[in-house]
Protein backbone atom coordinates (compact mmCIF):
# COMPACT_ATOMS: atom_id res chain seq x y z
CA UNK A 1 0.00 0.00 0.00
CA UNK A 2 3.02 2.29 -0.19
CA UNK A 3 1.95 3.39 -3.62
CA UNK A 4 -1.40 4.56 -2.26
CA UNK A 5 0.19 6.90 0.22
CA UNK A 6 2.43 8.14 -2.57
CA UNK A 7 -0.62 8.81 -4.70
CA UNK A 8 -2.26 10.67 -1.83
CA UNK A 9 0.84 12.70 -1.12
CA UNK A 10 1.13 13.53 -4.82
CA UNK A 11 -2.49 14.63 -4.88
CA UNK A 12 -1.96 16.74 -1.78
CA UNK A 13 0.99 18.54 -3.35
CA UNK A 14 -1.00 18.83 -6.57
CA UNK A 15 -3.79 20.43 -4.56
CA UNK A 16 -1.39 23.04 -3.24
CA UNK A 17 -0.22 23.65 -6.80
CA UNK A 18 -3.81 24.11 -7.84
CA UNK A 19 -4.38 26.64 -5.06
CA UNK A 20 -1.43 28.63 -6.39
CA UNK A 21 -2.30 28.06 -10.02
CA UNK A 22 -5.94 29.05 -9.59
CA UNK A 23 -4.93 32.65 -8.99
CA UNK A 24 -2.45 32.57 -11.84
CA UNK A 25 -4.95 31.06 -14.20
CA UNK A 26 -7.33 33.89 -13.50
CA UNK A 27 -4.85 36.72 -14.04
CA UNK A 28 -2.70 35.03 -16.63
CA UNK A 29 -5.42 33.15 -18.46
CA UNK A 30 -8.25 35.64 -18.29
CA UNK A 31 -6.44 38.97 -18.36
CA UNK A 32 -3.58 37.80 -20.54
CA UNK A 33 -1.43 39.40 -17.88
CA UNK A 34 1.68 37.54 -16.90
CA UNK A 35 2.21 37.87 -13.19
CA UNK A 36 5.55 36.42 -12.19
CA UNK A 37 5.15 38.14 -8.83
CA UNK A 38 2.52 35.55 -7.98
CA UNK A 39 5.10 33.55 -6.03
CA UNK A 40 6.01 36.66 -4.06
CA UNK A 41 2.36 37.24 -3.15
CA UNK A 42 2.22 33.61 -2.06
CA UNK A 43 5.08 34.36 0.32
CA UNK A 44 3.52 37.58 1.57
CA UNK A 45 0.35 35.69 2.43
CA UNK A 46 2.22 32.92 4.18
CA UNK A 47 4.54 35.17 6.17
CA UNK A 48 1.84 37.66 7.14
CA UNK A 49 -0.47 34.92 8.38
CA UNK A 50 2.35 33.35 10.36
CA UNK A 51 3.35 36.68 11.85
CA UNK A 52 -0.24 37.51 12.81
CA UNK A 53 -0.81 34.06 14.23
CA UNK A 54 2.24 34.40 16.46
CA UNK A 55 0.94 37.77 17.65
CA UNK A 56 -2.77 36.97 18.00
CA UNK A 57 -3.00 33.22 18.32
CA UNK A 58 -6.07 33.17 16.09
CA UNK A 59 -5.52 31.04 13.03
CA UNK A 60 -8.57 31.99 11.01
CA UNK A 61 -8.35 35.70 11.73
CA UNK A 62 -4.71 35.65 10.65
CA UNK A 63 -5.65 33.90 7.45
CA UNK A 64 -8.37 36.37 6.53
CA UNK A 65 -6.29 39.44 7.33
CA UNK A 66 -3.27 38.11 5.45
CA UNK A 67 -5.36 37.37 2.38
CA UNK A 68 -7.05 40.77 2.41
CA UNK A 69 -3.83 42.70 2.95
CA UNK A 70 -2.07 40.81 0.16
CA UNK A 71 -4.98 41.43 -2.18
CA UNK A 72 -4.73 45.15 -1.45
CA UNK A 73 -1.01 45.12 -2.20
CA UNK A 74 -1.72 43.23 -5.40
CA UNK A 75 -4.34 45.74 -6.47
CA UNK A 76 -1.93 48.58 -5.80
CA UNK A 77 0.65 46.91 -8.03
CA UNK A 78 -1.96 46.44 -10.74
CA UNK A 79 -3.31 49.96 -10.52
CA UNK A 80 0.00 51.79 -10.22
CA UNK A 81 2.31 49.70 -12.39
CA UNK A 82 0.96 46.75 -14.29
CA UNK A 83 -2.03 48.54 -15.69
CA UNK A 84 0.21 50.63 -17.92
CA UNK A 85 1.47 47.50 -19.63
CA UNK A 86 -1.70 45.85 -20.89
CA UNK A 87 -0.97 43.29 -23.60
CA UNK A 88 2.79 43.83 -23.40
CA UNK A 89 4.05 40.43 -22.41
CA UNK A 90 7.74 41.13 -22.04
CA UNK A 91 7.50 44.34 -20.01
CA UNK A 92 4.92 42.57 -17.81
CA UNK A 93 7.39 39.79 -17.16
CA UNK A 94 10.21 42.14 -16.28
CA UNK A 95 8.03 44.32 -14.14
CA UNK A 96 6.60 41.45 -12.13
CA UNK A 97 10.01 39.83 -11.70
CA UNK A 98 11.19 43.21 -10.43
CA UNK A 99 8.27 43.42 -7.99
CA UNK A 100 9.01 39.92 -6.74
CA UNK A 101 12.67 40.79 -6.23
CA UNK A 102 11.63 43.78 -4.14
CA UNK A 103 9.09 41.81 -2.11
CA UNK A 104 11.54 38.96 -1.66
CA UNK A 105 14.20 41.31 -0.36
CA UNK A 106 11.77 42.95 2.05
CA UNK A 107 10.68 39.56 3.39
CA UNK A 108 14.29 38.51 3.75
CA UNK A 109 15.18 41.55 5.82
CA UNK A 110 11.99 41.29 7.88
CA UNK A 111 11.88 37.54 8.53
CA UNK A 112 15.36 36.26 7.70
CA UNK A 113 16.34 33.54 5.28
CA UNK A 114 15.80 30.38 7.31
CA UNK A 115 12.62 28.41 6.72
CA UNK A 116 9.64 28.80 9.02
CA UNK A 117 6.95 26.20 9.65
CA UNK A 118 3.52 27.74 10.07
CA UNK A 119 1.07 25.65 12.09
CA UNK A 120 -1.78 23.57 10.78
CA UNK A 121 -5.17 24.82 11.87
CA UNK A 122 -6.85 23.35 14.91
CA UNK A 123 -8.74 20.15 14.20
CA UNK A 124 -6.51 19.18 11.30
CA UNK A 125 -3.54 17.99 13.30
CA UNK A 126 -2.67 14.35 13.36
CA UNK A 127 -3.44 11.57 10.96
CA UNK A 128 -6.24 9.35 9.97
CA UNK A 129 -6.37 5.77 8.82
CA UNK A 130 -7.56 4.95 5.35
CA UNK A 131 -8.44 1.49 4.09
CA UNK A 132 -7.20 -0.01 7.30
CA UNK A 133 -3.49 0.32 6.82
CA UNK A 134 -2.73 3.65 5.16
CA UNK A 135 -1.97 6.46 7.57
CA UNK A 136 -2.47 9.88 6.06
CA UNK A 137 -2.26 13.33 7.66
CA UNK A 138 -5.68 14.94 8.04
CA UNK A 139 -4.29 18.27 6.88
CA UNK A 140 -3.29 16.83 3.52
CA UNK A 141 -6.64 15.15 3.04
CA UNK A 142 -8.29 18.46 3.81
CA UNK A 143 -6.08 20.17 1.26
CA UNK A 144 -7.28 17.83 -1.48
CA UNK A 145 -10.89 18.54 -0.60
CA UNK A 146 -10.13 22.24 -0.46
CA UNK A 147 -8.69 22.21 -3.97
CA UNK A 148 -11.72 20.41 -5.36
CA UNK A 149 -14.12 22.78 -3.65
CA UNK A 150 -12.16 25.83 -4.78
CA UNK A 151 -12.14 24.58 -8.36
CA UNK A 152 -15.89 24.07 -8.29
CA UNK A 153 -16.45 27.49 -6.75
CA UNK A 154 -14.33 29.30 -9.31
CA UNK A 155 -15.95 27.48 -12.20
CA UNK A 156 -19.43 28.18 -10.87
CA UNK A 157 -18.52 31.79 -10.23
CA UNK A 158 -17.20 32.33 -13.73
CA UNK A 159 -20.19 30.60 -15.25
CA UNK A 160 -23.09 31.98 -13.24
CA UNK A 161 -22.20 35.37 -11.85
CA UNK A 162 -22.39 38.47 -13.99
CA UNK A 163 -18.82 39.30 -13.03
CA UNK A 164 -17.75 36.04 -14.60
CA UNK A 165 -19.47 36.99 -17.84
CA UNK A 166 -17.99 40.47 -17.70
CA UNK A 167 -14.49 39.17 -17.16
CA UNK A 168 -14.83 36.89 -20.10
CA UNK A 169 -16.19 39.58 -22.39
CA UNK A 170 -13.59 42.06 -21.17
CA UNK A 171 -10.93 39.55 -22.05
CA UNK A 172 -12.37 38.41 -25.35
CA UNK A 173 -12.73 41.90 -26.66
CA UNK A 174 -11.80 44.91 -24.60
CA UNK A 175 -13.16 47.34 -27.17
CA UNK A 176 -16.58 45.77 -27.26
CA UNK A 177 -16.67 45.37 -23.50
CA UNK A 178 -15.95 49.06 -23.18
CA UNK A 179 -18.63 50.08 -25.64
CA UNK A 180 -21.32 48.08 -23.85
CA UNK A 181 -20.42 49.84 -20.64
CA UNK A 182 -18.22 47.37 -18.82
CA UNK A 183 -15.56 49.20 -16.88
CA UNK A 184 -12.57 47.25 -18.06
CA UNK A 185 -9.99 48.86 -15.73
CA UNK A 186 -12.18 48.12 -12.72
CA UNK A 187 -12.74 44.54 -13.85
CA UNK A 188 -9.03 44.02 -14.31
CA UNK A 189 -8.32 45.51 -10.90
CA UNK A 190 -10.78 43.16 -9.24
CA UNK A 191 -9.55 40.14 -11.15
CA UNK A 192 -5.99 40.90 -10.22
CA UNK A 193 -7.01 41.41 -6.59
CA UNK A 194 -8.73 38.04 -6.64
CA UNK A 195 -5.64 36.46 -8.16
CA UNK A 196 -3.33 37.82 -5.49
CA UNK A 197 -5.82 36.90 -2.78
CA UNK A 198 -5.71 33.33 -4.02
CA UNK A 199 -1.91 33.46 -4.03
CA UNK A 200 -1.92 34.57 -0.40
CA UNK A 201 -4.52 31.95 0.50
CA UNK A 202 -2.33 29.30 -1.10
CA UNK A 203 0.66 30.69 0.79
CA UNK A 204 -1.04 30.14 4.12
CA UNK A 205 -1.81 26.50 3.32
CA UNK A 206 1.40 25.89 1.42
CA UNK A 207 3.45 27.17 4.33
CA UNK A 208 1.90 24.54 6.55
CA UNK A 209 2.46 21.82 3.95
CA UNK A 210 6.05 22.47 2.89
CA UNK A 211 7.37 25.26 5.17
CA UNK A 212 8.19 28.75 3.95
CA UNK A 213 11.39 30.49 3.03
CA UNK A 214 12.08 33.37 0.65
CA UNK A 215 13.23 30.85 -1.99
CA UNK A 216 10.10 28.73 -1.98
CA UNK A 217 8.07 31.46 -3.66
CA UNK A 218 9.96 31.01 -6.91
CA UNK A 219 9.83 27.21 -6.82
CA UNK A 220 6.09 27.23 -6.31
CA UNK A 221 5.59 29.95 -8.92
CA UNK A 222 7.43 28.04 -11.64
CA UNK A 223 5.52 24.82 -10.93
CA UNK A 224 2.24 26.71 -10.89
CA UNK A 225 3.11 28.34 -14.21
CA UNK A 226 3.65 24.89 -15.64
CA UNK A 227 0.26 23.83 -14.31
CA UNK A 228 -1.46 26.82 -15.86
CA UNK A 229 0.11 26.32 -19.24
CA UNK A 230 -0.24 22.55 -19.36
CA UNK A 231 -3.86 22.92 -18.31
CA UNK A 232 -4.47 25.44 -21.05
CA UNK A 233 -4.43 29.18 -20.44
CA UNK A 234 -7.47 30.24 -18.51
CA UNK A 235 -8.96 26.79 -18.10
CA UNK A 236 -9.77 26.04 -14.46
CA UNK A 237 -10.60 22.34 -14.92
CA UNK A 238 -7.51 22.01 -17.08
CA UNK A 239 -5.42 23.54 -14.31
CA UNK A 240 -6.91 21.13 -11.78
CA UNK A 241 -6.05 18.09 -13.89
CA UNK A 242 -2.59 19.44 -14.65
CA UNK A 243 -1.98 20.24 -10.99
CA UNK A 244 -2.76 16.69 -9.94
CA UNK A 245 -0.64 15.33 -12.79
CA UNK A 246 2.34 17.50 -11.82
CA UNK A 247 1.85 16.66 -8.14
CA UNK A 248 1.92 12.94 -8.92
CA UNK A 249 4.90 13.33 -11.28
CA UNK A 250 6.73 15.17 -8.55
CA UNK A 251 5.94 12.62 -5.86
CA UNK A 252 6.77 9.54 -7.92
CA UNK A 253 9.80 11.22 -9.43
CA UNK A 254 11.14 11.91 -5.95
CA UNK A 255 10.47 8.38 -4.77
CA UNK A 256 11.57 6.43 -7.81
CA UNK A 257 14.35 8.56 -9.32
CA UNK A 258 15.49 10.98 -6.65
CA UNK A 259 18.47 12.13 -8.70
CA UNK A 260 16.17 13.14 -11.54
CA UNK A 261 13.40 14.70 -9.51
CA UNK A 262 12.96 18.16 -11.07
CA UNK A 263 13.90 16.81 -14.45
CA UNK A 264 11.04 14.30 -14.28
CA UNK A 265 8.60 17.20 -14.02
CA UNK A 266 9.99 19.70 -16.47
CA UNK A 267 11.21 17.46 -19.26
CA UNK A 268 7.81 15.81 -19.82
CA UNK A 269 6.18 19.22 -19.57
CA UNK A 270 8.50 20.61 -22.24
CA UNK A 271 7.77 17.65 -24.49
CA UNK A 272 4.06 18.05 -23.91
CA UNK A 273 4.18 21.75 -24.76
CA UNK A 274 6.26 21.15 -27.87
CA UNK A 275 3.50 18.96 -29.24
CA UNK A 276 0.46 20.58 -27.67
CA UNK A 277 1.25 24.25 -27.25
CA UNK A 278 -2.33 25.04 -26.31
CA UNK A 279 -2.35 22.74 -23.32
CA UNK A 280 -4.88 20.17 -22.21
CA UNK A 281 -8.08 22.18 -22.34
CA UNK A 282 -6.95 25.52 -23.74
CA UNK A 283 -8.90 26.95 -26.60
CA UNK A 284 -7.08 27.18 -29.89
CA UNK A 285 -6.05 30.75 -30.56
CA UNK A 286 -7.92 31.95 -33.57
CA UNK A 287 -5.90 33.78 -36.12
Amino acid at each position, binding site marked *: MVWLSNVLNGLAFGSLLFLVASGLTITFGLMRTINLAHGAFYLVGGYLAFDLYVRTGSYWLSLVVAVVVTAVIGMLVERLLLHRLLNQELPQIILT*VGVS*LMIGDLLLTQYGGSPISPPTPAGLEGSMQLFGSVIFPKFRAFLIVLALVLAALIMAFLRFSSIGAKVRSAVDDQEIARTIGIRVPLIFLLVFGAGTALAAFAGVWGGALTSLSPDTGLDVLLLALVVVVVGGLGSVPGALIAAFAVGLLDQFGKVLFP*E*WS*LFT*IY*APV*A*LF*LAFRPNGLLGKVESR
Partner: protein
Amino acid sequence: MNLPSPGDHVKSRRLRSAVVLGVLLLVLLALPFVLPSFYLFVATRILALGLFATAFNIVFGFGGMPSLGHAAFFGLGAYVVGIASTRSDLPFVVIVVLTLVAGTALGVVFGLFNLRAKGIYLLLLTLALAQAAYGLAFQQVELTGGDNGISGITREGVPIPGSASAFYWLALAMVVVSLSLMWAFMRSPVGMAITGLRESESRLAATGYRVGSYRVYAFAVSGAFSAVAGLLDAYLLGSASPSNMAFLLSAEVMVFAILGGAAFFFGPFLGAAVILSLELYVSTLTSRWTFVLGIVYVLTALFMSDGILGRIAYLRRRARRKTAESPTRAAAGETDVAVPADTDDLVEERHT
Protein backbone atom coordinates in the same frame (compact mmCIF):
# COMPACT_ATOMS: atom_id res chain seq x y z
CA MET B 1 13.10 67.27 -54.78
CA ASN B 2 16.51 66.43 -53.46
CA LEU B 3 16.52 62.84 -52.32
CA PRO B 4 18.73 62.06 -49.38
CA SER B 5 21.56 59.84 -50.38
CA PRO B 6 22.34 57.36 -47.66
CA GLY B 7 25.37 56.15 -49.55
CA ASP B 8 27.28 59.34 -48.82
CA HIS B 9 27.25 59.25 -45.09
CA VAL B 10 27.69 55.49 -44.92
CA LYS B 11 31.40 55.71 -45.65
CA SER B 12 32.09 58.43 -43.11
CA ARG B 13 30.00 56.57 -40.59
CA ARG B 14 31.92 53.40 -41.17
CA LEU B 15 35.16 55.28 -40.61
CA ARG B 16 33.83 56.92 -37.47
CA SER B 17 32.62 53.58 -36.13
CA ALA B 18 36.02 52.04 -36.75
CA VAL B 19 37.73 54.88 -34.91
CA VAL B 20 35.34 54.68 -31.97
CA LEU B 21 35.76 50.91 -31.74
CA GLY B 22 39.54 51.22 -31.97
CA VAL B 23 39.72 53.79 -29.18
CA LEU B 24 37.34 51.74 -27.04
CA LEU B 25 39.47 48.66 -27.52
CA LEU B 26 42.63 50.55 -26.53
CA VAL B 27 40.93 51.82 -23.38
CA LEU B 28 39.77 48.31 -22.53
CA LEU B 29 43.27 46.94 -23.11
CA ALA B 30 44.73 49.56 -20.77
CA LEU B 31 42.25 48.97 -17.91
CA PRO B 32 44.44 46.55 -15.90
CA PHE B 33 47.09 49.28 -15.59
CA VAL B 34 44.70 51.73 -13.98
CA LEU B 35 42.02 49.71 -12.19
CA PRO B 36 42.42 48.27 -8.69
CA SER B 37 41.96 44.52 -8.67
CA PHE B 38 38.38 44.47 -7.43
CA TYR B 39 37.28 46.79 -10.21
CA LEU B 40 39.13 44.64 -12.66
CA PHE B 41 37.14 41.68 -11.36
CA VAL B 42 33.92 43.56 -12.07
CA ALA B 43 35.19 44.56 -15.51
CA THR B 44 35.88 40.91 -16.32
CA ARG B 45 32.41 40.02 -15.07
CA ILE B 46 30.94 42.64 -17.39
CA LEU B 47 32.79 41.07 -20.29
CA ALA B 48 31.36 37.63 -19.48
CA LEU B 49 27.79 38.77 -18.90
CA GLY B 50 27.96 41.21 -21.82
CA LEU B 51 28.93 38.33 -24.06
CA PHE B 52 26.05 36.32 -22.61
CA ALA B 53 23.57 39.11 -23.28
CA THR B 54 24.82 39.60 -26.83
CA ALA B 55 24.51 35.88 -27.55
CA PHE B 56 21.05 35.80 -25.96
CA ASN B 57 19.99 38.62 -28.23
CA ILE B 58 20.53 36.54 -31.37
CA VAL B 59 17.47 34.59 -30.33
CA PHE B 60 15.67 37.42 -28.56
CA GLY B 61 16.20 40.70 -30.39
CA PHE B 62 17.12 39.37 -33.81
CA GLY B 63 15.17 36.11 -34.00
CA GLY B 64 12.18 37.60 -32.18
CA MET B 65 11.93 34.58 -29.88
CA PRO B 66 11.61 35.58 -26.21
CA SER B 67 13.55 32.83 -24.48
CA LEU B 68 13.15 32.68 -20.72
CA GLY B 69 15.57 29.79 -20.38
CA HIS B 70 18.91 31.07 -21.51
CA ALA B 71 20.58 30.55 -18.16
CA ALA B 72 20.70 26.87 -19.13
CA PHE B 73 23.40 27.63 -21.71
CA PHE B 74 25.39 29.89 -19.42
CA GLY B 75 25.23 27.33 -16.63
CA LEU B 76 26.13 24.53 -19.00
CA GLY B 77 29.32 26.37 -19.95
CA ALA B 78 30.15 26.87 -16.28
CA TYR B 79 29.60 23.19 -15.48
CA VAL B 80 31.67 22.03 -18.45
CA VAL B 81 34.55 24.04 -17.02
CA GLY B 82 33.82 22.86 -13.49
CA ILE B 83 33.73 19.21 -14.39
CA ALA B 84 36.50 19.22 -16.99
CA SER B 85 38.97 21.30 -15.03
CA THR B 86 38.54 19.57 -11.67
CA ARG B 87 38.46 16.01 -12.97
CA SER B 88 40.91 16.08 -15.83
CA ASP B 89 43.85 18.06 -17.01
CA LEU B 90 42.51 18.77 -20.44
CA PRO B 91 44.18 21.78 -22.05
CA PHE B 92 42.26 25.07 -22.03
CA VAL B 93 41.66 25.00 -25.77
CA VAL B 94 40.00 21.61 -25.53
CA ILE B 95 37.76 22.85 -22.73
CA VAL B 96 36.74 25.80 -24.87
CA VAL B 97 35.91 23.48 -27.75
CA LEU B 98 33.94 21.19 -25.43
CA THR B 99 32.00 24.19 -24.18
CA LEU B 100 31.18 25.30 -27.71
CA VAL B 101 30.05 21.80 -28.65
CA ALA B 102 27.91 21.42 -25.52
CA GLY B 103 26.34 24.85 -25.97
CA THR B 104 25.57 24.14 -29.61
CA ALA B 105 24.06 20.76 -28.80
CA LEU B 106 21.81 22.17 -26.09
CA GLY B 107 20.88 24.98 -28.49
CA VAL B 108 19.79 22.40 -31.05
CA VAL B 109 17.61 20.75 -28.40
CA PHE B 110 16.04 24.11 -27.53
CA GLY B 111 15.51 24.85 -31.21
CA LEU B 112 13.90 21.50 -31.91
CA PHE B 113 11.50 21.91 -29.01
CA ASN B 114 10.64 25.40 -30.22
CA LEU B 115 10.10 24.73 -33.91
CA ARG B 116 6.68 26.33 -33.78
CA ALA B 117 6.04 27.88 -30.36
CA LYS B 118 5.39 31.60 -30.18
CA GLY B 119 4.89 34.29 -27.57
CA ILE B 120 3.82 33.06 -24.14
CA TYR B 121 4.22 29.45 -25.19
CA LEU B 122 7.79 29.98 -26.28
CA LEU B 123 8.53 31.76 -23.02
CA LEU B 124 7.21 28.88 -20.99
CA LEU B 125 8.66 26.14 -23.14
CA THR B 126 12.15 27.62 -22.85
CA LEU B 127 11.54 28.11 -19.13
CA ALA B 128 10.54 24.47 -18.73
CA LEU B 129 13.61 23.29 -20.64
CA ALA B 130 15.88 25.42 -18.50
CA GLN B 131 14.22 24.16 -15.33
CA ALA B 132 14.80 20.60 -16.52
CA ALA B 133 18.49 21.43 -16.93
CA TYR B 134 18.46 23.17 -13.56
CA GLY B 135 16.97 20.05 -12.04
CA LEU B 136 19.82 17.98 -13.38
CA ALA B 137 22.39 20.43 -12.05
CA PHE B 138 20.69 20.43 -8.68
CA GLN B 139 20.04 16.72 -8.29
CA GLN B 140 22.90 14.96 -10.06
CA VAL B 141 25.04 15.52 -7.00
CA GLU B 142 27.68 13.05 -8.04
CA LEU B 143 28.49 15.00 -11.16
CA THR B 144 27.60 18.57 -10.28
CA GLY B 145 27.99 18.85 -6.54
CA GLY B 146 24.27 19.55 -6.20
CA ASP B 147 23.27 22.66 -4.32
CA ASN B 148 26.87 23.48 -3.43
CA GLY B 149 28.06 23.31 -7.00
CA ILE B 150 31.66 22.82 -7.96
CA SER B 151 34.24 24.99 -6.35
CA GLY B 152 37.98 25.12 -6.62
CA ILE B 153 38.09 25.79 -10.34
CA THR B 154 41.61 27.05 -10.91
CA ARG B 155 43.08 28.82 -13.88
CA GLU B 156 46.05 26.53 -14.03
CA GLY B 157 45.33 25.40 -17.55
CA VAL B 158 44.55 28.89 -18.78
CA PRO B 159 47.19 30.69 -20.85
CA ILE B 160 49.31 32.78 -18.41
CA PRO B 161 47.58 31.55 -15.24
CA GLY B 162 47.66 33.36 -11.96
CA SER B 163 47.48 37.02 -12.78
CA ALA B 164 44.07 38.70 -12.74
CA SER B 165 45.22 41.08 -15.47
CA ALA B 166 46.20 38.20 -17.71
CA PHE B 167 42.80 36.59 -17.27
CA TYR B 168 41.13 39.90 -18.00
CA TRP B 169 43.07 40.16 -21.26
CA LEU B 170 42.23 36.58 -22.15
CA ALA B 171 38.55 37.25 -21.48
CA LEU B 172 38.72 40.45 -23.50
CA ALA B 173 40.30 38.63 -26.43
CA MET B 174 37.71 35.85 -26.33
CA VAL B 175 34.86 38.31 -26.05
CA VAL B 176 36.15 40.44 -28.92
CA VAL B 177 36.54 37.38 -31.13
CA SER B 178 33.11 36.07 -30.13
CA LEU B 179 31.40 39.40 -30.79
CA SER B 180 33.12 39.71 -34.17
CA LEU B 181 32.01 36.24 -35.15
CA MET B 182 28.43 36.93 -34.07
CA TRP B 183 28.44 40.28 -35.86
CA ALA B 184 29.58 38.61 -39.08
CA PHE B 185 27.13 35.79 -38.60
CA MET B 186 24.20 38.15 -38.26
CA ARG B 187 25.09 39.76 -41.59
CA SER B 188 25.35 36.44 -43.41
CA PRO B 189 22.42 34.89 -45.26
CA VAL B 190 21.69 32.64 -42.29
CA GLY B 191 21.84 35.56 -39.86
CA MET B 192 19.62 37.70 -42.06
CA ALA B 193 17.11 34.88 -42.34
CA ILE B 194 17.09 34.69 -38.53
CA THR B 195 16.22 38.38 -38.52
CA GLY B 196 13.54 37.47 -41.03
CA LEU B 197 12.04 35.09 -38.44
CA ARG B 198 11.26 38.08 -36.30
CA GLU B 199 9.83 40.08 -39.18
CA SER B 200 7.61 37.49 -40.83
CA GLU B 201 7.83 33.73 -40.69
CA SER B 202 5.11 33.27 -43.28
CA ARG B 203 7.01 35.37 -45.79
CA LEU B 204 10.23 33.58 -44.99
CA ALA B 205 8.56 30.23 -45.68
CA ALA B 206 6.94 31.50 -48.86
CA THR B 207 10.38 32.64 -49.97
CA GLY B 208 11.79 29.14 -49.68
CA TYR B 209 13.39 29.12 -46.24
CA ARG B 210 12.63 26.25 -43.92
CA VAL B 211 11.59 28.28 -40.90
CA GLY B 212 12.21 25.57 -38.30
CA SER B 213 15.83 25.15 -39.40
CA TYR B 214 16.58 28.81 -38.84
CA ARG B 215 15.05 28.68 -35.39
CA VAL B 216 17.41 25.82 -34.62
CA TYR B 217 20.40 27.71 -36.08
CA ALA B 218 19.56 30.74 -33.96
CA PHE B 219 19.41 28.75 -30.75
CA ALA B 220 22.53 26.76 -31.66
CA VAL B 221 24.73 29.79 -32.29
CA SER B 222 23.26 31.70 -29.36
CA GLY B 223 23.73 28.65 -27.14
CA ALA B 224 27.35 28.17 -28.14
CA PHE B 225 28.39 31.72 -27.29
CA SER B 226 26.23 31.81 -24.15
CA ALA B 227 28.11 28.74 -22.98
CA VAL B 228 31.44 30.48 -23.64
CA ALA B 229 30.22 33.33 -21.44
CA GLY B 230 29.47 30.79 -18.72
CA LEU B 231 32.96 29.38 -19.15
CA LEU B 232 34.54 32.77 -18.57
CA ASP B 233 32.36 33.36 -15.54
CA ALA B 234 33.28 30.01 -14.00
CA TYR B 235 37.00 30.66 -14.41
CA LEU B 236 36.55 34.13 -12.99
CA LEU B 237 34.57 33.07 -9.92
CA GLY B 238 36.36 29.78 -9.50
CA SER B 239 33.07 27.94 -9.16
CA ALA B 240 29.97 26.70 -10.92
CA SER B 241 26.64 26.38 -9.13
CA PRO B 242 22.95 25.86 -9.87
CA SER B 243 22.39 29.61 -9.60
CA ASN B 244 24.29 29.86 -12.89
CA MET B 245 21.34 28.02 -14.43
CA ALA B 246 18.53 29.56 -12.44
CA PHE B 247 15.43 31.31 -13.65
CA LEU B 248 16.53 34.63 -12.18
CA LEU B 249 19.57 34.70 -14.45
CA SER B 250 17.37 34.00 -17.48
CA ALA B 251 15.23 36.95 -16.47
CA GLU B 252 18.26 39.11 -15.79
CA VAL B 253 19.78 38.57 -19.22
CA MET B 254 16.47 39.60 -20.75
CA VAL B 255 16.61 42.79 -18.71
CA PHE B 256 20.18 43.41 -19.89
CA ALA B 257 19.00 43.14 -23.47
CA ILE B 258 15.93 45.30 -23.07
CA LEU B 259 17.59 47.98 -20.96
CA GLY B 260 20.48 48.37 -23.38
CA GLY B 261 18.28 48.06 -26.47
CA ALA B 262 17.38 44.68 -27.94
CA ALA B 263 17.09 46.19 -31.40
CA PHE B 264 20.82 46.84 -31.47
CA PHE B 265 23.74 44.50 -31.68
CA PHE B 266 25.64 46.19 -28.84
CA GLY B 267 22.56 47.08 -26.79
CA PRO B 268 22.53 43.98 -24.56
CA PHE B 269 26.24 44.39 -23.79
CA LEU B 270 25.63 47.97 -22.76
CA GLY B 271 22.70 46.86 -20.59
CA ALA B 272 24.91 44.34 -18.79
CA ALA B 273 27.59 46.96 -18.26
CA VAL B 274 25.11 49.49 -16.89
CA ILE B 275 23.48 47.10 -14.42
CA LEU B 276 26.74 45.58 -13.19
CA SER B 277 28.29 49.04 -12.74
CA LEU B 278 25.22 50.12 -10.86
CA GLU B 279 25.50 47.06 -8.65
CA LEU B 280 29.10 47.98 -7.91
CA TYR B 281 28.10 51.50 -6.98
CA VAL B 282 25.00 50.61 -4.96
CA SER B 283 26.88 47.95 -3.02
CA THR B 284 29.09 50.65 -1.59
CA LEU B 285 26.00 52.36 -0.17
CA THR B 286 23.71 49.57 0.98
CA SER B 287 23.44 45.82 1.20
CA ARG B 288 19.97 45.93 -0.35
CA TRP B 289 21.10 45.46 -3.95
CA THR B 290 18.33 42.95 -4.72
CA PHE B 291 15.74 45.57 -3.81
CA VAL B 292 17.41 48.16 -6.01
CA LEU B 293 17.65 45.64 -8.83
CA GLY B 294 13.91 45.11 -8.52
CA ILE B 295 13.39 48.83 -8.92
CA VAL B 296 15.63 48.81 -11.99
CA TYR B 297 13.47 46.05 -13.51
CA VAL B 298 10.29 47.95 -12.82
CA LEU B 299 11.65 51.18 -14.27
CA THR B 300 12.98 49.36 -17.32
CA ALA B 301 9.59 47.79 -17.95
CA LEU B 302 7.74 51.05 -17.55
CA PHE B 303 10.02 53.54 -19.24
CA MET B 304 12.84 51.91 -21.15
CA SER B 305 11.30 49.18 -23.26
CA ASP B 306 13.21 50.50 -26.30
CA GLY B 307 16.41 50.57 -24.30
CA ILE B 308 19.12 53.14 -23.90
CA LEU B 309 20.30 52.86 -27.49
CA GLY B 310 16.71 53.01 -28.68
CA ARG B 311 16.32 56.31 -26.86
CA ILE B 312 19.53 57.67 -28.33
CA ALA B 313 18.56 56.58 -31.83
CA TYR B 314 15.17 58.18 -31.41
CA LEU B 315 16.65 61.48 -30.32
CA ARG B 316 19.15 61.43 -33.16
CA ARG B 317 16.46 60.61 -35.68
CA ARG B 318 14.41 63.50 -34.47
CA ALA B 319 17.35 65.83 -34.76
CA ARG B 320 18.13 64.61 -38.25
CA ARG B 321 14.57 64.89 -39.48
CA LYS B 322 15.12 68.57 -39.84
CA THR B 323 17.61 67.92 -42.59
CA ALA B 324 16.31 64.82 -44.33
CA GLU B 325 12.86 64.21 -45.73
CA SER B 326 11.25 60.94 -46.56
CA PRO B 327 10.82 60.72 -50.32
CA THR B 328 7.68 58.69 -49.89
CA ARG B 329 5.80 60.61 -47.30
CA ALA B 330 6.95 64.12 -47.86
CA ALA B 331 4.73 64.36 -50.90
CA ALA B 332 1.73 63.38 -48.83
CA GLY B 333 2.54 66.22 -46.50
CA GLU B 334 3.08 63.97 -43.53
CA THR B 335 5.03 65.37 -40.67
CA ASP B 336 6.27 62.05 -39.39
CA VAL B 337 9.20 61.99 -41.72
CA ALA B 338 11.79 59.29 -41.55
CA VAL B 339 15.42 58.97 -42.42
CA PRO B 340 17.23 56.11 -44.09
CA ALA B 341 18.64 53.33 -42.01
CA ASP B 342 22.28 53.68 -41.05
CA THR B 343 23.63 50.52 -42.52
CA ASP B 344 27.00 50.73 -40.85
CA ASP B 345 26.28 52.55 -37.70
CA LEU B 346 28.07 51.52 -34.55
CA VAL B 347 24.88 51.30 -32.61
CA GLU B 348 23.52 49.25 -35.42
CA GLU B 349 19.80 49.04 -35.50
CA ARG B 350 18.34 45.61 -35.89
CA HIS B 351 17.22 46.00 -39.43
CA THR B 352 20.74 46.23 -40.76
